[in-house]
């Protein structure tokens, strides 16, 4: 995770907010560093994380995660991280007959109306396990990214319904944090809107106030 970003958002792994939906939008640039940031942030906060990764392979996130100080492999082995590797699963679902509905079932269907199987996968992954002791602080859902669902033929309303159900059941019922990524114009919130410039380096990101000259940086 990037410490500077934590400072800007005024948050640390031990006091992050629950029950919130965060939308990560990028337009004409690549905002994936935010995805890596939040993934490592919530793993370090000892949260149960369900990551629906449709853009990159597991090894990609793993390599970046190592630079940021988290091991995705170990998190997955100890049950902290549930990882849906979209790229690999897509091949499975298209070329192999599935006994049960697969989260990416819509790839097989000509007129897939909704993302219900994907939602059920998420709900199952983040359901609290009655093991007596609470191992993890709270559940987090991370989706990278929503525009892939649109590109794969799901209607905008179907994606909205998926988000709605994730918010309603998972965010409200289980009080967790959802993070999405989709490319679009970022929404300006009237009460709190801050704009910064950033520069990505090898293992960190620096943030600057708007208007600083590159010569100064």
């Amino acid at each position, binding site marked *: 995770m990037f410490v500077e970003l934590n400072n800007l958002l005024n948050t640390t792994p031990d006091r992050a907010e629950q029950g919130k939906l965060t939308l990560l939008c990028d337009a004409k640039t690549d905002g994936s560093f935010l995805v890596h940031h939040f993934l490592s942030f919530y793993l370090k906060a000892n949260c149960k994380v369900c990551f629906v990764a449709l853009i990159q392979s597991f090894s990609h996130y793993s390599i970046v995660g190592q630079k940021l100080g988290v091991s995705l492999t170990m998190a997955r082995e100890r049950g902290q991280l549930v990882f849906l590797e979209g790229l690999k699963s897509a091949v499975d679902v298209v070329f192999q007959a599935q006994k049960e509905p697969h989260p990416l079932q819509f790839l097989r269907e000509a007129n897939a109306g909704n993302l219900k199987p994907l939602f059920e996968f998420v709900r199952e992954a983040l359901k609290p396990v009655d093991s007596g002791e609470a191992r993890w602080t709270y559940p987090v859902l991370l989706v990278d990214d929503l525009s892939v669902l649109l590109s794969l033929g799901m209607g905008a309303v179907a994606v909205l319904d998926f988000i709605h*159900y994730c918010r309603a059941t998972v965010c*409200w019922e289980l009080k967790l944090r959802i993070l999405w990524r989709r490319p679009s114009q970022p929404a300006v919130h009237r009460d709190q809107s801050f704009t910064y410039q950033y520069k990505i380096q090898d293992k960190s990101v620096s943030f600057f106030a708007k208007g600083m000259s590159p010569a100064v940086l």
Partner: protein
Amino acid sequence: MLDSLLALGGLVLLRDSVEWEGRSLLKALVKKSALCGEQVHILGCEVSEEEFREGFDSDINNRLVYHDFFRDPLNWSKTEEAFPGGPLGALRAMCKRTDPVPVTIALDSLSWLLLRLPCTTLCQVLHAVSHQDSCPGDSSSVGKVSVLGLLHEELHGPGPVGALSSLAQTEVTLGGTMGQASAHILCRRPRQRPTDQTQWFSILPDFSLDLQEGPSVESQPYSDPHIPPVSKNAKVDPTTHLTFNLHLSKKEREARDSLILPFQFSSEKQQALLRPRPGQATSHIFYEPDAYDDLDQEDPDDDLDI
């Protein structure tokens, strides 16, 4: 006008955007309705019941009848809790009221319904619900119905928004400047011209409506320092910053006054017409009379004295 929006009844559209949200105003109007003793129904699709009721005191909350379509609107959980027919079914059920008590139905949000239902169906149901108090020949006096629909303008094309707009008795479009919210209210009363006005307002933490004067002129953004600020009472001369000339010089005025209009019959024109010009080709008329023609050799203009 903003605080008497519901007095007319019928469909009231609250058009908001990402920049100027409308749910606070919806809640303020719901609170007002509840305090007036009206029956208030909420069709909650977009936010949880908890979130909607937040900010209302228990007195208001007890008067709200909340229909929860947030938790499982599409019946994905396959429990039988969901209202059969979904939000549309609930709306249709409200068409069959027989109460004399006035009722307000708040749709949170109309956009949610419009995205998932055919526009024509939604319009038909909305029309039926909002006009049930004006059915001709109905002896039982059904109370006034107001339907408050929250519409996120940016989600829909001009077609569906236009259809809903034509159904609405009142349209409130939210906007603002310099952090101050405004509502542009377009009101269509029966047999009268539509009226519109802009009202500046803010919503207090307890969802009471606070009507305001508007941002002061001095604090307007992007004011050009070279143009002196106009005081409120001074009449603004509209001809000052035009790119074309509205005034005539003396010469231009004289030239205009001496111009002869093309259809004015002066003596010169008359002479020109009476004296045929040389070289003018004579024209022939070839006439084939048919059976019904009355060929009268008498000239009908003979008695005219020109």
